[in-house]
């Protein structure tokens, strides 16, 4: 993949649930090798957008291209090159972690020997070595780690992570960040949604911010923030992501006397 080419290209994407508009005419490009942060308040359509980009949902209108090819929910060949950690994790609770990861690896066409090797390595690295518990018995953080491992087991070229760091302890987050940085250094692309703006600021190179209903209000390079620079927008200067985000999405203060 040419590092300058777009790994993800979204054109006029719209998604309606009945009469409710969840994503409105969204267009954005994510270049290959980018660590892309997709931000927005609750209910702004982030997960719906990821659903449309990964084949879980069919867009009402618009086109999606992944790795230069048109993508639909039927694009099995492209799905083989993508890794997804969905919002609800999508884990099969009756399985043990190694069984689940092996299942995903096999479905993505890995050889049995590769499956066993990678499963063992991932479980050891993510400290999920207790194989006496099924996924249903795992803590929320452990379940997140398993879902993350399932997203990367087949070395995808594009990785979609929906709220990947919530509920994971700092050591786990640090390890995942390290992997993700190495991942993008190899020219692969990461698309992340998160509400932890500090993490996004330190990790991502590009950010898009959406407001309800899935309307893009800002998209740009944020590497300048890491070098003590500032982002200019609306005639204002923003030295961190949080004030920019609040400026775009609207700050709300409500005084509850009894609280």
């Amino acid at each position, binding site marked *: 993949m040419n590092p300058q080419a777009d790994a993800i290209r979204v054109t006029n994407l719209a998604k309606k649930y009945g009469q409710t508009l969840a994503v409105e005419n969204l267009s954005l490009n994510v270049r290959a090798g980018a660590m892309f942060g997709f931000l927005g308040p609750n209910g702004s359509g982030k997960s719906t957008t990821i659903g449309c980009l990964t084949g879980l949902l069919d867009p009402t209108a618009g086109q999606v291209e992944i790795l230069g090819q048109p993508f639909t929910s039927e694009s099995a060949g492209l799905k083989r090159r993508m890794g997804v950690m969905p919002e609800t994790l999508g884990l099969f*609770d009756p399985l043990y972690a190694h069984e689940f990861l092996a299942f995903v690896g096999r479905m993505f066409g890995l050889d049995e020997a590769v499956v066993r090797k990678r499963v063992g390595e991932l479980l050891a690295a993510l400290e999920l070595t207790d194989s006496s518990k099924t996924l249903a018995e795992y803590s929320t953080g452990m379940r997140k780690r398993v879902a993350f491992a399932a997203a990367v087991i087949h070395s995808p070229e594009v990785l979609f992570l929906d709220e990947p760091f919530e509920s994971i302890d700092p050591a786990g987050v640090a390890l995942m960040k390290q992997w993700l940085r190495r991942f993008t250094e190899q020219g692969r692309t990461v698309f992340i949604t998160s509400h932890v703006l500090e993490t996004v600021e330190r990790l991502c190179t590009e950010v898009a911010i959406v407001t309800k209903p899935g309307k893009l209000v800002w998209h740009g390079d944020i590497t300048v923030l890491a070098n003590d620079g500032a982002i200019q927008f609306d005639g204002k200067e923003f030295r961190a992501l949080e004030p920019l985000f609040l400026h775009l999405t609207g700050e709300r203060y409500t005084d509850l006397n009894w609280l």
Partner: protein
Amino acid sequence: MNLHLVGQMVRLRYKLMWAKTRSRNGKIALFVVGYLLLVLIMILLSAGGLGAAVLAVKSGQAEKVAQAVLGALYVQALFGTVMLGFGMNAVFADVELRRYPLTGWERRLTRHFIGIVDPFWFLILALELGLAFGLCALGDFNPVQVLAAILLLFVSNYILARVISLMIERLASRKSGSALLMVAVMILAFLPGTLMPFLAKNKANMAALLRVLRWTPPFGAAAAMTHSGAPALAGLGLVAAWLLGLAAVLVYLETLPPRTQAVQTTTLKWDSPFDELGAFFGPQNGPLMAFWLRFYARNNRFRALYGLSLPLVSFLTFNFRYGFAKRSAPIDHIDPNGLFLAALGAIFTVSFFGTSRFAVNQYGYGGGAFRRFFLLPTDPAASMRAGSYASMLVGSSLIPVAMVLWLIFGGPFDARKVIMLLGSAITGLFALHAAGLWVTLYGPRKGSYTAAMGNDMSLMGNLVVIFGMLGALFTPQVLSKVLPAAVSPDNWWLIAFPAAAALAFYVISLRATGTLFSGKREELLAVVEGRVK
């Protein structure tokens, strides 16, 4: 006792029930329930408790009739709850109630009060009250005594159902438990049929049995209702003693710690029979098959129902052997053709009952895991096909066992009957699983994977499972009356037609639902993730 909060929780339960009726499925369910209620009220008035009361008073054998009616209702309530899962939906688990300022006893009271005010239990109570009303209106019986006996009996019935369910749940959670359960149910299923000829031959044995039954709650309640003075008090005392004893057992079972967790291990087990079996279905379907096989094998409800399948089929065969005919034949005489007709109907469901809950609602028990199937580099409908194949594979394993049981207990060997039974089993296997595919798409419902008991199927699911079973049982009986040649062993080859039709229905359903699957996924997702009822 925080009765206000307990009352609020009960109100919430009914609000949740009412909320379900806002959905399309809920409205249909409400209509059907309303219709069934009407029918049941008619049954209640004509042949139910009230009718029995009239008979009891007129015949002058009030106690015997009350014993029979209350005993039958008691057993039927247990059958309906334990086998079919009616009236056993917990609604709130103890963990959920811990969020509220309720003590341990208040939580227990709330859970069971919510359990007992289920519409199913209302029906049982209505039938019992019909008898009580009839006895009081037509006979010279004490209304306070009658009412007290009915209420005590009713509560003891509910608690016994809970105790049995908890015991089954604990048994099913162990690997060896399913086998034990199967043996226990086999014994229970065959005991009445085996005992009856023995009892019929010797009146003394029947009297001995009745003496034992006098110590049971229905007989105690009957005595309390139809006597006065000391015998009535003894009857009431007996039911109350049962109630207290069962309540103590229930509390004990509920406070037992969950099954000990497996010892922590870091060794990964790779060579699993599920993967080996799945491998026969190719590299694309193999992992999916292995997943579904694990899904079934690790489910307590499946293990319980799978274990109950053969006893249930045997029980139905044995008890339907007379068909529509009057039971005028000697009780120890079994008409081979009657037994065959009953078996022909009962065996239809043998491969379906164990996995039925899942076959009609494949995604309802996985919640958000449903999303995973759309992220895999394969046709998403492959997961539904694999789920159906796995269900058929597991269910069909009972067909040869059922056939062997027929060869042992079915009377003189007749190859034509064996072929017809096999054909009926195959017809059921394909037809019911085909229906299951459609219900999976059009009648999904969020269920609990970990619950071993309870009926959490949608209305369509219930229709397929219950009417599938009833239809199968009655079809050979009806055919033997209107078109005897169709079920005659002389025309054994005719069974090939329904079997072929069922196979065609299955293949067509597999293709059609596969095509419709992607279009239905957002609706399915909303239901299985609990966003829409």
